[in-house]
């Protein structure tokens, strides 16, 4: 009997290959979306990690000579022999093939993992022997070829820099036995003597938290993860739709099988087994598909067959076991969620109930009321959470309530709009068009919900990513405005030397002290064109810089302002001085509060502090750098070319922005597929709706045109509703989740052109999805329509 039951169930698929295709393709696409987003996310993370490694100087504590110059190699060995795990770095300027480059020598055996090489394999013997050097693509192209040396392209190497073994570096720079600085590695052993006992001439530079991009990128990761979950939700809706329709179609067969004596329990068991197999098949297809799509969309990443088995190969995308697990889990979970309701209805279905699938429920059913109530409750909960919620978990709860509530409310809102249209229709065909669109809504609502979420996700992604980019580039311009950054113990000499050679000399002087009872830093700024031109404020008085320059005001960062409950106009006590706050500035990535005073005020308050760091503005930073080294005798390692680092980090972010655009395309394509499949599945059930209208005098072509128009109308309405939802989503992420997770709020910008483009894309997608079913309708033979009136189907 089991075998016969299986045969009967499968015979349905054999006779309706399109439905089987819908089910498998829907599940596979949903899974593909999920695993594709995972791939995008992983790739984005890898890009950041590469950037972090390149900018990695800041992430480790370092030892450098107290009085400038270099560190003798013996001191390095002595430190290692005392249990200090340090890694040597020698830097210098080096001319090769007419190019002046920064040469960085490292010891690959002790260097922190990933420094310089971006975690990719390099032949060690060749590297130690000086036969291999590393540079990024641009530097490598500039260099051309060098005799007896292979240049390996590693784009994690900073621009204008070549990385080589420290032994070669000493030889090339003619500085035998010299080391510029020592990187202090994590995981130091027990029982180390104090630094002063071994190397009193070295001082420890702590890792620079202030310019660390780590917290910025953490924020970005969090937001991308949120969108990963959203894509999961879109997928679930599609799977739900595909399975729900497949079950509706088989009500007749279930009735027949039961009438023939198949026990209900056995029948349900068979269907569960059948679905499990289908979900496994489709899920597996989806994981592979997602992997291939991601590999095709992502730049510089290759998919390989080996990658499918999780093998990590440099420059290729590996399909991790976790993707298999979550991908198949997603397919099974989605199937279970979708099939649960359908199986329950089948189990409850009276033996003699109509086999005709219900497409049109006139009366407001109990289910509709329930969904409406649920949607209202969820949306109210979202509102409540937005107003009064605190904490990261509640921030995500807000997201969930907002999205599910909006999705559930969608059919009700659309129905209300269509009913309004029907009431105000004048012509009889228009009236029927509105009414029939309403009638079709229940069958399409899952696909439309998927479209709503996909559109909202895309609006949210566009807004979030673009806001992030504007904020980030603005922040970099503001904070890394100077072309060169200098570290020196002799500030007076540097100022005297640099002043005539640069546009502006900006001392960076600060002191750690509590402000308003919170840990904070106070800076003394030399206010000039750099500050006036580059700094953006979240809030400020009109004459903010003048009043700060005159010593009449102070400006504070957002963290301090929010935590201390201060804003523009409030007064802040710094040491013995109390000044009004003239401006609040965004300070992304900084964990502590900050206040900025004018330099003279700072010197008066803290006379003992002398600046040890300087920013230099120059139109010719290369010449200035040369002059500082040759003329002032400043060690290479104490000059940082921030402009180059800034360019590199921006480039890395641009790549991520491209990747998220690919995500948008993927999501909308899947939503369009959901619409197509829903329309195709509904087509047969819709004949009883269309045949009477045809018989009363409409041509098939007219009916097909109206079908197309109907899909466009629904897509347009859904897209319009998705816009505020997407903006609410972006707002929640930027202004709620981010504040809870990181303590600062990312400003939200609006991008109407992007939204218009997305909307147009959604309409095109819906048109494409509806075109085929409409064309099929326009070509239905009259005999097929006439059958409606004669045959019990």
């Amino acid at each position: 009997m089991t075998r016969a039951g299986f045969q009967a169930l499968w015979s349905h698929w054999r006779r309706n290959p399109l439905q089987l295709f819908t089910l498998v393709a829907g599940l596979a696409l949903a899974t593909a979306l999920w695993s594709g987003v995972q791939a995008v996310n992983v790739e984005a993370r890898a890009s950041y990690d590469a950037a972090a490694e390149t900018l990695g100087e800041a992430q480790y504590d370092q030892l450098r000579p107290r009085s400038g110059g270099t560190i003798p190699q013996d001191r390095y060995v002595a430190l290692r022999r005392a249990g200090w795990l340090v890694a040597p770095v020698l830097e210098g300027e080096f001319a090769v093939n007419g190019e002046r480059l920064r040469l960085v020598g490292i010891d690959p055996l002790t260097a922190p993992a990933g420094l310089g090489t971006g975690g990719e394999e390099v032949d060690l013997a060749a590297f130690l022997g000086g036969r291999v050097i590393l540079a990024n693509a641009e530097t490598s192209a500039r260099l051309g070829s060098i005799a007896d040396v292979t240049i390996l392209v590693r784009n994690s190497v900073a621009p204008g820099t070549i990385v080589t073994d420290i032994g070669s570096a000493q030889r090339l720079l003619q500085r035998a036995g010299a080391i510029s600085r020592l990187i202090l590695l994590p995981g130091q052993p027990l029982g180390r003597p104090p630094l002063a006992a071994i190397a009193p001439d070295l001082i420890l530079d702590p890792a620079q938290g202030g310019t660390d991009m780590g917290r910025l990128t953490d924020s970005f990761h969090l937001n991308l993860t949120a969108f990963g979950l959203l894509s999961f939700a879109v997928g679930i809706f599609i799977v739900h739709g595909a399975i729900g329709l497949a079950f509706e179609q088989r009500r007749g067969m279930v009735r027949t099988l039961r009438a023939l004596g198949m026990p209900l329990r056995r029948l349900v068991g068979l269907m569960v087994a059948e679905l499990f197999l289908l979900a496994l098949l489709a899920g597996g297809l989806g994981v592979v598909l997602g992997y291939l799509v991601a590999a095709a969309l992502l730049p510089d990443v290759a998919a390989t067959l080996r990658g499918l088995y999780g093998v990590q190969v440099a420059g290729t995308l590996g399909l991790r076991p976790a993707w298999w697990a979550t991908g198949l889990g997603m397919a099974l979970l989605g199937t279970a969620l979708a099939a649960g309701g359908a199986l329950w209805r089948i189990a409850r279905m009276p033996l003699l109930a109509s086999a005709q699938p219900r497409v049109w429920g006139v009366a407001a059913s109990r289910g509709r009321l329930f969904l409406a109530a649920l949607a209202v409750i969820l949306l109210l909960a979202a509102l409540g959470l937005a107003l009064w919620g605190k904490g990261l978990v509640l921030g995500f709860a807000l997201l969930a309530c907002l999205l599910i509530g909006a999705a559930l409310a969608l059919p009700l809102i659309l129905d209300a709009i269509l009913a309004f249209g029907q009431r105000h229709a004048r012509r009889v065909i228009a009236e029927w068009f509105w009414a029939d669109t309403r009638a079709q809504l229940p069958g399409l609502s899952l696909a439309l919900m998927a479209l709503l979420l996909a559109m909202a996700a895309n609006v949210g992604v566009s807004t979030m990513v673009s806001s992030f980019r504007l904020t980030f580039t603005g922040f970099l311009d503001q904070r890394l405005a100077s072309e060169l950054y200098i570290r020196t113990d002799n500030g007076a000499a540097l100022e005297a030397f640099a002043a005539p050679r640069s546009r502006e000399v900006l001392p960076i002087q600060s002191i750690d002290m509590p402000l308003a009872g919170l840990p904070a830093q106070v800076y003394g700024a030399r206010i000039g064109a750099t500050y006036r031109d580059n700094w953006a404020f979240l809030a400020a008085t009109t004459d903010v810089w003048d009043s700060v320059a005159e010593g009449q005001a102070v400006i504070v960062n957002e963290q301090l302002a929010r935590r201390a409950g201060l804003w523009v106009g409030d007064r802040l006590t710094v040491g013995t001085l109390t000044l009004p706050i003239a401006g609040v500035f965004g300070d992304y990535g900084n964990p502590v509060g900050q206040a900025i005073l004018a330099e003279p005020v700072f010197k008066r308050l803290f006379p003992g502090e002398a600046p040890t760091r300087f920013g230099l503005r120059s139109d010719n930073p290369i010449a200035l750098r040369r002059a500082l080294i040759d003329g002032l005798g400043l060690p290479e390692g104490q000059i940082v070319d921030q402009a180059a680092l800034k360019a590199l980090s921006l480039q890395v972010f641009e790549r991520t922005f491209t990747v998220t655009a690919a995500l948008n395309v993927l999501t909308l394509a899947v939503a369009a597929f959901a619409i197509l499949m829903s329309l195709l599945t509904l087509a047969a059930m819709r004949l009883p709706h269309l045949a009477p209208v045809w018989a009363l005098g409409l041509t098939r072509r007219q009916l097909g045109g109206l079908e197309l128009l109907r899909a466009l109308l629904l897509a347009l309405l859904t897209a319009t509703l998705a816009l505020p939802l997407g903006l609410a989503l972006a707002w929640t992420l930027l202004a709620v989740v981010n504040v809870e997770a990181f303590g600062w709020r990312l400003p939200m910008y609006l991008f109407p052109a992007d939204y218009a483009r997305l909307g147009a894309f959604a309409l095109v997608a819906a048109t494409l999805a509806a075109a085929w079913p409409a064309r099929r309708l326009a070509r239905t033979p009259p005999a097929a329509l006439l059958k409606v009136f004669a045959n019990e189907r």
Partner: protein
Amino acid sequence: MNAKVLALLLLLPVSAQAQGFAGIGSTADGFATPAPNHTFQFPADHGAHPDFRIEWWYLTANMTGSDGTPYGLQWTLFRSALAPEAGAGWQAPQIWFGHAAITTPTAHHATERFARGGIGQAGVEVAPFRAWIDEWQMAGDTFDHLSLNSAGPDFAFAVDLSAEGPLVLHGEGGYSVKSAKGQASYYYSQPFFRLSGTLTLPGGNVAVTGTAWLDREWSSQPLADDQTGWDWFSLSFDSGDKLMGFRLRQTGGTVFTSGTWIAADGATTALGDGAFTAEPLETTPVAGRDIPTRWRVTVPGHDLDATVTALNPQAWMGLTIPYWEGPVIVSGSHAGRGYLEMTGYD
């Protein structure tokens, strides 16, 4: 950079499946190779042999705390040459790496170090004896009286070693054959160290006493192409006898065994292929793979038929080259303690 992985892949370049110490280079371009009938020169041979590709100073110890808790300790200094010359400065082709570990019945701590040989960060001197990498050091006026110290982020040890027996030469007078094709190494041991000292563990300092076994081995290509890994036993029986035995696993499921039966007075009997057997009785999932942690070990010629059980089955050395190494307990025809090393389990 994955320089560390690379370093080891380069040092041990053979085949992908030969992860670990088993996969030692199949060619020995320019490197010296071991030959039979070698006469050792001590103390000179306690030092480094830079014209050979790979060499180690390998100490394992079975110890007991004052409360009777058993402990194990491992300290190894490896030398690996990129070219058969000593060299000086950064250009020296000698690379050193050190492994240190403490095993308790419930925990296993392990750490590693890497160093360039030419700049003084690591090396071996003969008289007085001194072997070091970073602050880790094994040193003494003579090879018979050594002090050993080492430290990682969460453990440290400092112990004194005193030899109570002679050096032991394995194989034919220290020429140890590793395959039927004739691959071989120079191999001798000091298995008679008495040990006392202090272990520093997360829970505090522990005073320990026990015995230690130091292996010295160097070669340029000790393994054949078809050998995928090894299982190495050093066992000290309550009777005073000791056994060194290893089993090289070959593709196709065959094994090559060799060993040395060491009487309490240091007299040795070489055990040729098959005279020593070891077969796994039970495996434990360790670090995502199945590792044999209970063995049947026999030497029919000396009436040995014993079960060797890991003190802590999770004694996994999760280092750049991962392998299993930890203390074992012997029961059956003979009772005792010892150490077990297993490589090449993927």
